[in-house]
């Protein structure tokens, strides 16, 4: 049976990946994972060694949770290519932990015949605590037709799709810090309290770019007088 595929045209920002529940982590899995990664860190496989340094038991390698997230993504993104993956480990993993992996489409875009889908992914333990979270960038075909073109050596289907996250929520410009340069060369005692008070309103007024410069100039002397 030919594998089913995931195509760009069927993906929407906000789509949720089907949650994936893993079987509880046990020590046999830790032994197999140690062998598979050729990493025999005693804290992962040697109970007395782990207890000797004050741990309640062996601990699972964090990268095991990353592997589970890889499974979540690969199961969903059939035929998609993982181009980038990044993960931050927020909590230790223990034997008997039962993880549920989840994910959501955070962005998608198409440019020059290449199509990308970005995902937020994370895993929670049986207490609902976050153990790992990350992002994944996938490259996919636009459609079955696009894939067929690729396989027959034809040029790709070109559909330009701007990044949706950018359209939905423009990131606020970084607050300008013109006052920092002026204040710092002279480390006086008095300005210390006044400066933060003057900076905050200036930062709030900054986003409308055209008005930013006159507004900050006008507001600063006013605040200082008060």
């Amino acid at each position, binding site marked *: 049976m*030919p*594998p089913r*595929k995931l195509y760009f045209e069927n993906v929407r920002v906000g789509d949720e990946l089907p949650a994936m529940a*893993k*079987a509880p982590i046990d020590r046999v*899995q830790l032994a*197999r*994972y140690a*062998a*598979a*990664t*050729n*990493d025999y*860190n*005693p*804290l992962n496989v040697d109970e007395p*060694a782990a207890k000797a*340094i*004050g741990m309640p038991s062996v601990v699972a*390698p*964090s*990268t*095991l949770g*990353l*592997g*589970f997230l*890889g*499974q979540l*993504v*690969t*199961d969903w993104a*059939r*035929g998609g*290519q*993982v*181009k*980038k*993956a*990044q*993960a*931050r*480990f927020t909590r230790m993993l223990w034997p008997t932990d039962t993880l549920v992996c989840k994910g959501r489409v955070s962005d998608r875009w198409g440019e020059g015949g290449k199509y990308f889908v970005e995902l937020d992914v994370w895993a929670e333990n049986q207490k609902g605590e976050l153990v790992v979270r990350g992002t*994944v960038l996938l490259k996919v075909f636009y459609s079955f037709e696009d894939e067929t073109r690729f396989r027959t050596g034809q040029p790709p289907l070109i559909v330009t799709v701007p990044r949706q996250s950018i359209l939905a929520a423009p990131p606020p410009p970084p607050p300008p810090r013109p006052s920092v340069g002026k204040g710092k060369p002279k480390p006086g005692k008095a300005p210390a309290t006044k400066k933060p008070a003057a900076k905050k309103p200036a930062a709030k007024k900054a986003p409308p770019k055209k008005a930013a410069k006159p507004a900050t100039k006008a507001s600063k002397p006013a605040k200082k007088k008060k």
Partner: protein
Amino acid sequence: MLDRSAVGRTTPPTLNEVERGAIRRFAEALGDYNPIYFDAEYARASGYSNVAAPPSFPISFAAGSDLRELVGVPARNLLLGEVSFEYERPIVAGDRLLVTSRVSEISDRPGPAGRVEVAVIEDEGRDEEGQIVFRARRSYVVRATREV
């Protein structure tokens, strides 16, 4: 204590032959029975040139680099805080990858219980033609131990 002079330290390239059996055992250890990791024909129909390696498979190359030699602290005293991968193309069975690891950063930053030491290691895998296949970045913090 991390070795402050470790920044820039690089391991010699290590040849990693990506074997089908190693991929199978890695996928089995994860409990991931996706046929792209087991069945070459299915993998080809899915767009891979051979049985594919799971996305986190480069972890198994990294074990070749001895952390104590690289940063002066053994693996059992290091906690992996963050990891990232970038793939030029999928890793598949039959690949012969030359992997190097380089210490890119040794620093300390404020943590909830005082300052924590951080070591960042960057790995790179190239095929025999010298083409880059993957890059990885591992960020470790030194585990607080009872002696400290």
